[in-house]
């Protein structure tokens, strides 16, 4: 058997800076969707806290820190990003490995909000969309997940198959915002 080399969705993509904003691929580690079984939301919240030290995210929220986050990912679902899920979680929720399924980008800089305003039909300004807030929405025509991870930093996720399209769309918005000075 040949030697297999894992490649990220945008393998070799160098961070792209236009104006004051930088777009870069980020390795989130292991990605696991956690979908609690019926009536098990309280139990999975306790198990997540015990095993990984973070709260079960309410709709529109992300908990944890950079190396280990729980991101609300839709109705009755969270994405555990970073650690290998503790086996105890499987008693209360369906766990599905999604590590290779998502393109993960950071968009960082003072103009990031203006760029996302051209791509996402949700108000992501800092006054209403603060650190630890997340949405499932559209990025142009792609279903995606957007999370504010810092004062001027967003995590953008779309399906892996759309990696190059995501870069294309974000880059065009970055150029457009930068050209306005």
């Amino acid at each position, binding site marked *: 058997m040949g030697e297999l080399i894992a490649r990220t969705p945008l393998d070799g993509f160098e961070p792209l800076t236009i104006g004051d904003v930088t777009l870069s691929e980020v390795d989130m580690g292991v990605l696991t969707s956690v979908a609690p079984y019926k009536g098990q939301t309280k139990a999975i919240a306790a198990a997540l806290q015990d095993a990984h030290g973070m709260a079960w995210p309410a*709709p*529109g929220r992300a908990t944890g820190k950079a190396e280990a986050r729980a991101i609300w990912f*839709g*109705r009755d*679902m969270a994405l555990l990003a970073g650690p290998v899920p503790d086996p105890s979680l499987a008693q209360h929720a369906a766990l599905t490995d999604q590590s290779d399924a998502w393109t993960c980008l950071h968009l960082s800089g003072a103009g990031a909000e203006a760029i996302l305003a051209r791509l996402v*039909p*949700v108000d992501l300004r800092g006054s209403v969309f603060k650190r630890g807030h997340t*949405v*499932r*929405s*559209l990025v142009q025509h792609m*279903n995606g997940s957007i999370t504010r991870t810092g004062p001027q930093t967003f995590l953008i996720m779309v399906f892996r198959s759309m990696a190059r399209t995501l870069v294309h769309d974000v880059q065009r918005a970055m150029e457009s915002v930068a050209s306005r000075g």
Partner: protein
Amino acid sequence: MRLPCPICGARDHREFYYQGAAVMLDRPEPDAGSDVWDEYLHLRPNVPGAHDELWSHDAGCGAWLRVTRNTVTHEVIGAVLASEVSR
């Protein structure tokens, strides 16, 4: 048009997929008879005014919603999770 998702809040209609009249939530019993099934499958009153519809928050939380919308004024009156509609 924006639809008030009970989970996500008010969202642009681009995020949603439209299924049709919410009558689909009232599925008849299997032995209800051909007249009842005929009506369920094919007959829609098309009344002007408040209208219950099914929308999927496809690009958002993924939930099915029953949205009440005025077909004359296009006012969106409200939305509930389809799973919480009592039958």
